[in-house]
């Protein structure tokens, strides 16, 4: 069901990641004042962008679930948010390393993107306790979808609010990371984003396929058990009927 076109996708992902690493290490120039450590930018920023898009995509899939009542959309939304949280952990770790290397501190509160990301990450961490403390599967899917929609809408509001709070004291150029990159860095950055996106989609499909397969296996097992029960003491039941 989910495995269609998986092989070409996986191959494309491997090629894109290999290409992006090759570009990062052999093609992109060293940053003038940050040196080698600036290369973490090609992992950190694509990861952050893909994670945030994954959160919002999870919200959109949740809308689809509530609209159609099809629970497979909830599963898609869940896996998207799950992967985004994993990427988000990576973003916070690589961000801290980069901040330590280039600014001298592990964490800076006056960096609005950093702070907004932390708040969004903290909010999405509640997805797990919320989802897994509801037992009824149908209700679990619906409540998780409601959370995914509210939290997905929260992402842009939160970024705007944090930036607004900072803008008073620290007027800064917004396009610090993307706008004025030299050509070679920009190409490397774009390839890295494509690679990260492909990686996300591949993992998403893989996880969905695995979840789907294990669910099918479970229902087959159940049917098998039912049939075994039926065939053994079937005779007395039939006669009474």
């Amino acid at each position, binding site marked *: 069901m989910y495995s269609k076109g998986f092989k070409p996708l996986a191959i494309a992902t491997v090629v894109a990641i290999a290409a992006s690493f090759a570009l990062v290490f052999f093609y992109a120039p060293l940053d003038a004042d940050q040196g080698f450590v600036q290369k973490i930018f090609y992992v950190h920023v694509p990861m952050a962008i893909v994670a945030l898009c994954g959160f919002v995509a999870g919200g959109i899939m949740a809308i689809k679930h*509530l609209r159609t009542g099809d629970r497979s959309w909830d599963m898609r939304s869940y896996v998207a948010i799950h992967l985004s949280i994993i990427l988000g952990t990576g973003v916070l770790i690589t961000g801290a390393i980069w901040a330590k290397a280039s600014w001298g501190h592990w964490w800076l509160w006056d960096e609005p993107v950093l702070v907004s990301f932390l*708040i*969004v990450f*903290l*909010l999405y*961490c*509640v997805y797990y*306790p*919320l989802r897994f*403390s*509801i*037992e009824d599967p*149908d*209700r679990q899917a*619906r*409540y998780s*979808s*409601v*959370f995914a*929609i*509210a*939290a997905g*809408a*929260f992402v842009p*509001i*939160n970024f*705007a*609010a*944090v930036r*607004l*709070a900072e803008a*008073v004291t620290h007027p800064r150029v917004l396009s610090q990371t993307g706008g004025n990159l030299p050509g070679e860095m920009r190409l490397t950055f774009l390839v890295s984003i494509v690679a990260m996106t492909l990686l996300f989609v591949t993992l998403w499909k893989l996880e969905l396929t695995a979840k789907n397969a294990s669910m099918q296996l479970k229902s087959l097992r159940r049917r098998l058990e039912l049939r075994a029960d039926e065939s053994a003491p079937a005779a007395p039941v039939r006669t009474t009927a």
Partner: protein
Amino acid sequence: MIRTASAILRKDLRIELRTKETVPAMTLFTVTVYVLFHFGLDRDSLDGELASGVLWVTLLLAAVIGVTRLFATEREQGGIDSLLLAPVDRTALFVAKAAALFLYLLLLEVVAVPVFGLLLLGPDLFDALPELALILLLADVGLAAVGALVSALAAETRARELIVPLLLLPLVVPLLIGAASATEPLLREGGQSEDLGRYLALLGGYDLVFVLIALGVFDYLLDD
């Protein structure tokens, strides 16, 4: 729908009036937190950003109590089933619950803000009052909408008391940013706010977005 909502709201207010459970607890909690802040910060009087931060963080923490209690009577006595059996719009339930929370917050602030002025605030509270009232009103609308949504989300989980603060507090960070930044210059000696309009716009935008989202998705909660 308005009639249903006001019937549910009247029921909630009557229960609150008779049991006196939520609002007194929230008020007591805020005063206790002021005392905690007094000793924690080791300061007799606060002003500026410290004052506005203490005031807003305390109010938000008190709001957690209100949100946790919001569906409490329905859950504990099974009243939710009869509410859901009634052939009324779920939206009416949301509007009633959000309105109840809004009123609780207003009542809380009528007591908690003057007490803050007496106990902790250095500059005179009186000059800041008109602007502060506007900020409080706008923040309460957003808090009521988000709070009612979070309360309904957590109502069916096994660990409600855990989910509510974890879910509510990150969601209200933009509200805290807007409200605390708008309040901060008001609580300074002779301070005048220059960016008040911008922060009020942030609060208003937050209110609008979350009221709309909550109205849109509330139908899917408590729906079986």
